[in-house]
């Protein structure tokens, strides 16, 4: 799985993502790409936009990173069906760049919240969640001040009816209730995918929950799902070459 992790000035979860993919998942072809690069490189399977505070969150979170030189190629890659996952600030960048609908605003409480939350898996028919089961509850940390997902009524209805909500904040038992919503997100939304199913953003940090020693390995199935989907692609490639 050729994975490229984009580094913006102010990214601070880039090494966490790198560790999760390179060391825990043991995928050797994992590298960083500096935001000034004009290209993400050839034959990339997965692009990760990591968490952090790109450009100090100036203007709006993700708003300036979205115009970094490398983003042109990330957007091209995504529009051609390439797999992109944005975590936390990466999710904000994806919304600002228009690759995902909606936008993330200040937490309802106005507080930066750093704690473990529970997520209910809403759909497993994606390359990001195929290793999970529907309703599966994951324990994954959040660390954000602006994770409050909003969209217009029409856009929200469209996201819901198209099955684009991947994770919702829930109780440990999987009940999607107001008290389990840390930031005020509409419909307890914690992660969404685009219509084509190749661009995914989530506020919680799966890369920080890939080893028991860190308190949870519930984030690992997301990366395992991705690897599985690329192995299938590779098998197709090999079969096509053999034919």
């Amino acid at each position, binding site marked *: 799985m050729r994975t490229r992790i984009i580094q913006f000035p102010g990214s601070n979860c880039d090494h966490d993502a790198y560790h999760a993919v390179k060391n825990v998942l043991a995928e050797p072809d994992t590298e960083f790409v500096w935001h000034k690069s004009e290209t993400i490189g050839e034959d990339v399977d997965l692009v990760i936009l990591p968490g952090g505070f790109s450009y100090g969150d100036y203007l709006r979170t993700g708003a300036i990173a979205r115009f970094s030189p490398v983003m042109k190629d990330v957007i091209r890659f995504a529009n051609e069906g390439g797999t992109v996952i944005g975590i936390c600030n990466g999710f904000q960048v994806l919304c600002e760049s228009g690759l995902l609908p*909606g936008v993330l605003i*200040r937490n309802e409480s106005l507080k930066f919240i750093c704690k473990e939350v529970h997520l209910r898996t809403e759909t497993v028919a994606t390359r990001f969640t195929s290793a999970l089961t529907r309703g599966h509850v994951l324990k994954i940390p959040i660390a954000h001040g602006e994770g409050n997902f*909003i969209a*217009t009524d029409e856009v929200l209805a469209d996201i819901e009816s198209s099955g684009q909500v991947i994770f919702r904040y829930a109780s440990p038992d999987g009940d999607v209730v107001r008290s389990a919503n840390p930031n005020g997100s509409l419909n307890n939304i914690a992660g969404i995918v685009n219509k084509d199913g190749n661009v995914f953003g989530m506020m919680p940090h799966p890369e920080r929950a890939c080893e028991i020693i860190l308190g949870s390995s519930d984030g690992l199935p997301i990366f395992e799902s991705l690897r599985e989907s690329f192995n299938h692609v590779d098998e197709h490639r090999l079969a096509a070459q053999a034919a």
Partner: protein
Amino acid sequence: MSYYVYIAIERKEAILDPQGKAIEHALSSLGFTSISNTRIGKLVRLKVEAASPDAARHIGEEAARKLLANAIMEEFSVIEVTDQPHLSVGAHA
């Protein structure tokens, strides 16, 4: 010519403004009970090289559309185009 273009950016009315709400709480505890619907926005000043105030305004609007405001949650308006680095209304009179 260079002009100063002032752009106000506000959150759409339908979108919750937790900062505005917090400030309103503080104001009300100070006794400002007649104040309501407090909202926080941004004021951006750009120095623009352009042939005319209208051309400068146009460039400011383009900048706002492309970067300064997010149309999903915000609305913007150019509130003044002037050759002075301050707003004419009330300021530095």
